[in-house]
């Protein structure tokens, strides 16, 4: 069951603890080395096939939250004993140094800047990077590369140089590289930034075809309206709302309090999303 708004401070009451949950975050907090608090008492759950949008003003902690999903933050992960729980749980595995390789396979992370993620000279090598690290056999790697590139409409791009791609193509190659690891959860940081309308539509089409859960940190509220089944409002490191996009994004007072605004398509009375 989901509530439209969670008052700050109340968290554990609304946690889903079923084994179907792909992601379980409970009381997550984080402060930067300088002492600035980035996240405070964040709690929510993502079920199988959920598509969750995380929205909020700049500096709210969206990217920081996402970096916790595959153990890139905090910089030193604890070693947990059997049965011990952690603030972040992925597919039933608590976030710890021991579970990290498996968690990183299950969470496919798409970074905001494709140049940070496209680090091999050719497209084929870059998409094969993940499967190579999984120590798969040569044929399996080749198959995955082919399938992932086909899934992002870039079939035959294996030998292309990564230096000669357009912005949309770069984003899609990054996504292919992530898909090649067959993740259960896609974590996307501002996926539509710097994309022209056509590239944006292409990316959206690929995301709709993905079989699995997605968690998307974005400023693109129209993307949330079109694609997400749930939205979480994050501000100053705290969760201020968690529910259906239709009700939350239409709440003008809530939007403006947290540095956002009602998306255009909802303002002019566009189709409601169920």
């Amino acid at each position: 069951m989901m509530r439209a708004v969670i008052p700050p401070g109340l968290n554990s009451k609304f946690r889903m603890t079923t084994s179907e949950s792909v992601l379980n975050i409970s009381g997550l907090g984080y402060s930067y080395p300088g002492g600035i608090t980035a996240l405070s008492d964040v709690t929510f759950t993502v079920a199988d096939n959920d598509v969750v949008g995380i929205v909020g003003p700049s500096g709210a902690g969206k990217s920081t939250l996402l970096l916790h999903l595959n153990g890139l933050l905090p910089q030193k992960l604890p070693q947990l004993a059997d049965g011990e729980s952690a603030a972040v749980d992925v597919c039933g595995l608590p976030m710890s140094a021991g579970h990290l390789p498996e968690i990183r396979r299950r969470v496919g992370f798409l970074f905001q800047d494709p140049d940070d993620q496209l680090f091999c000279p050719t497209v084929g090598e870059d998409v094969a990077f993940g499967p190579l690290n999984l120590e798969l056999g040569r044929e399996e790697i080749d198959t995955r590369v082919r399938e992932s590139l086909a899934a992002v409409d870039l079939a035959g791009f294996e030998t292309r140089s990564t230096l000669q791609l357009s912005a949309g193509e770069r984003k899609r190659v990054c996504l292919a590289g992530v898909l090649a690891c067959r993740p259960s959860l896609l974590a996307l940081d501002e996926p539509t930034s710097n994309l022209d309308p056509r590239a944006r539509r292409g990316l959206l089409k690929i995301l709709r075809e993905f079989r699995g859960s997605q968690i998307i940190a974005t400023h693109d509220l129209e993307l949330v309206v079109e694609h997400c089944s749930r939205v979480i409002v994050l501000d100053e490191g705290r969760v201020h709302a968690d529910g259906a996009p239709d009700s939350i994004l239409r709440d003008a007072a809530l939007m403006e309090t947290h540095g956002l605004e009602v998306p255009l398509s909802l303002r002019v009375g566009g189709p409601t999303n169920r």
Partner: protein
Amino acid sequence: MHIVDGPLSPEVCLGTGLLAAGAVGYSIHRLKDGLADRTVPLTGMMSALVFAGQMVNFPLIGAPVSGHLIGGVLAAVILGPWAGCLAITLVLMVQCLLFYDGGFSALGANILNMGVVGSIGGYAVYAVCRRFIGRGVGSTVVAAVVASWLSVMAAAFLFCIEFRLFHGSSDLDFGKVFALMVSFHSLIGIGEALITGTVISFVVRQRPDLIYSPDEHTSGTLAGAGRFVTAGCIAAMAVAAFVAPFASGHPDGLEAVAHETEFDSLQADFPALLLDEYAIPSPVEGWQESMLWQRLSVSLAGILGTVSVFVMAIGFGNALKPLATPAGAGHAE
């Protein structure tokens, strides 16, 4: 600074190549314990940066050409000696294999001079300086400036030795070749010291955490080997500044004195061009043509270079006032 195919004999190329390969292999070995999985992206990025940075123009006073960064000490100050050496090696490899800037056969010598001695040796000098003058912001810059100049001089001196070896022509007085090379490179060294100093002073004020600190990385300390390299570098500098002008091309020391008297006739024919650019005008008339002054002036050029480097370094240090708050610390993109 890059040696092309031609000046060096094949034996020297092979020898320096083997030395360079050994040193690079050792650097890789030392890196395995240190930066661990960060090594590949950081070092690759630093190579790209040095390569790009070498194309930035620095104006020179009174000259139509511009100065450029070499980057050995810069790489070592940020990444440490071993990664710095690898970064410079990569730059040299790409420059050679893709742009033919530096000969194939001379790649070993170039890596040895600029990567190994330039970066590892430069770091050793830098670390020793910091130990004596402190580890603050100003001291870091001073140490980097000194290390940059010395690394250029050491590389130049090494090139002279490599050039001398196995070139059996006896009609050449290699002392003069040395003197010319060393004087010229002391000027290049001042440029490199200035550039490195300015860049490091900028970086250390904005992001002091980027400066390499051996305390975090166990294998970064230069115990034992480091002291040896430092001693070697300082010795090389000393030789460059003080002994090179006196080096005789003749193996037999006893004959050297006899030949000196023959040099007098050659001295008089020294083209004015050289005297104007590399020698210091003598204060006393009549000294200009003497062999003693010729040698002394080159040596003085070396010492003057060293002193001006220290003065510059101290000037940098004084110009840096500690800021109230570290600017840009933890600044997220």
